[in-house]
C-alpha cells in the first residue's frame, strides 16, 4: 500500500476544469506517448462512459490529445490545442462510447503506425490514472514510477533473470501471460533510474521480445 502524500493533496497545478476529466486525460495521453516510442501515423481516442458524455464540456478530448503530444497538465495551451501546429502534425479522431463493463472514465488509445498498439487506461480520481492494458496484456502503470515493460516467452526463471540485472529497488512487479509457455508481460515499477546499458542487457536476454522503459510523469 502506497503511503499517502501531502503534496498529492495540494496538487497538481493544472489546467481546469476537472482533475479526473482534464488533468487525468492529459496524464493518460502522456503515458501513452511514453509507452509508444515510435512515430504514430494515426491515433484514435475512444472515450467511454462519463468521459464520453461529459468529456466535451470538461475538455477531456483536448486534454488527452495535448498529453499525447507532450503537453503537461499545467500547460495553458491545452485549451487551444486543436488550433496549434503540433496538433496538425498527426491524424487523430475521437469516438464516444458507452460500455458499463468499463470504468466511468475509461479510454482506449489506438495507435496506428510502426508498430500498431492499443493502450487502455482509467482516470481514477484526483488526477490519478492507471494504464491497465497494452494490446492484450494486463499491466499496471500509474506514471508515478519509472517502469520497465517487457514482453517475453513464459518460461521458468525469466523473472529472476530479469530482476537480477536491475540494481535499483523494485516498487512493484506485475506479470501476465496469454497462457503457460506463451507470450507474457512483466511490468516493473522502479524507485530509481535504469541505464541504457541495463536496458540493452535486458533486450539481449534470450526469449525477451520487447523491452520498453516508460518514464514517470513529472506532474
Amino acid at each position: 500500500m502506497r503511503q499517502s502524500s501531502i503534496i498529492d493533496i495540494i496538487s497538481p497545478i493544472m489546467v481546469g476544469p476537472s482533475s479526473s476529466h482534464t488533468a487525468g486525460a492529459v496524464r493518460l495521453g502522456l503515458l501513452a506517448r511514453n509507452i509508444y516510442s515510435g512515430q504514430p501515423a494515426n491515433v484514435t481516442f475512444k472515450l467511454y462512459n462519463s468521459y464520453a458524455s461529459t468529456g466535451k464540456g470538461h475538455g477531456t478530448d483536448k486534454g488527452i490529445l495535448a498529453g499525447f503530444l507532450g503537453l503537461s497538465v499545467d500547460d495553458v495551451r491545452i485549451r487551444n490545442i486543436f488550433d496549434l501546429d503540433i496538433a496538425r502534425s498527426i491524424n487523430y479522431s475521437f469516438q464516444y462510447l458507452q460500455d458499463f463493463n468499463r470504468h466511468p472514465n475509461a479510454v482506449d488509445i489506438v495507435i496506428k503506425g510502426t508498430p500498431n498498439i492499443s493502450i487502455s487506461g482509467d482516470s481514477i480520481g484526483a488526477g490519478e490514472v492507471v494504464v491497465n492494458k497494452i494490446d492484450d496484456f494486463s499491466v499496471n502503470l500509474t506514471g508515478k514510477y519509472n517502469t520497465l515493460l517487457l514482453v517475453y516467452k513464459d518460461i521458468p526463471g525469466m523473472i529472476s533473470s530479469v530482476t537480477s540485472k536491475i540494481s535499483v529497488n523494485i516498487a512493484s512487479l506485475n506479470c501476465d501471460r496469454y497462457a503457460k509457455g506463451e507470450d507474457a508481460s512483466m511490468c516493473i515499477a522502479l524507485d530509481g533510474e535504469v541505464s541504457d546499458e541495463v536496458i540493452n542487457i535486458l533486450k539481449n536476454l534470450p526469449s525477451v521480445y520487447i523491452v520498453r522503459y516508460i518514464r514517470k510523469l513529472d506532474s
Partner: protein
Amino acid sequence: MEKRISTFEELYNACDTHEQPIYEISQLHEAEISDMQIPEVRIKVKKSLDAMKEAITAGLHSKELSISGMCGDDCWKLQKRFEQKHALFGKLYEKIVTYALATSEENLRMGKIVACPTAGSCGIVPAVLVAVSESLGVSEKEQIDALITAGEIGRIISNKIQLAGAVGGCQAECGVAAAMSAGALTQMRGGSVRQVLNAVALAIKNLLGLTCDPVCGLVEIPCVKRNPFLAIHAVTASEMAMAGIESKIPIDEVIDAMEQTGKLMSPMLKESSQAGLARTKTALKLEEKLKLL
C-alpha cells in the same frame, strides 16, 4: 519517524510527544516517504501556494465564460457590487468570497489552478489562506506552514475516503477542502493542535451528506458558487475552535461518519448527474442546449 500517521489521534499524539506543531511532523514525514529534504518539500508547497495566488489574480481579471457558456462572470459581478457597496461583514469577507469565486471560475475556463484537493473544490483553500494572509500580513513562511497543515488534514482524511465526488459525494471534495481550510486558518492564527483538529471536525460535521449533482455533468453548477460558500463555512469553524469550542464527537469518529454517509449516499447523487439539481427541469433544458454545441 517511528510510525506512519494515519489517523488524527495519531497525529495529535505525535505532536504532543514531540511538542511540535502539525506542519513540522507532517513535513518530516513527507520528506521521509518521498526521499527529499524538508526544504525541498517546502519548495514544492510554495510552488502550489504561488500557483494559487496566480490563479486568484487571473480569475479576478477575467469574465470569460466556460466552454458550456453556463458560468464565468459571477466574480466580476461580485467585484462590481463591492466597489459600490461594501459587504456587511467587511473587507476580509469580500476578499474571501471573491478569491474563491475567482479561482473556481478560472478553473472552469480551463485556466491554471491548483487541485486542492480536487479541481472542483480548488477555490476554497486558496481563498481562505491568501485573503487572510493579505489582511493580517501573514509571512510567507507561515503561509507555507498553513498549507502543509491543510495538506496533512486532507492526507489523513484520504486514508479513509477517496477524495472524489463519485465515491463520497461533494462532502469528500468541497467538504474536505473546507476542513483543510478551517484547520489551516486555525494554524495560521496561532491555534493549538487541539484547536486545529476541532476546526476540522466542526467544518466536516456541518457538511455531512453534501451530494454531488452537477448539472450537465460539468464542474460548474453548483460547484463554482459552492466554493465561496464553503470558504466562509471554514472561517466559522475556525472562529469556534479558536474560542475553545470543541466537537463533542472526536474528529476520527466524524471521519468515520463521513465515510459511512458517503457509502449510504445513492450513486444517483454521486457525480452521475442522475438526480438532484442535475435532473431539474431547467437542468434538462440546459443539457439539451449543450448537445447542440
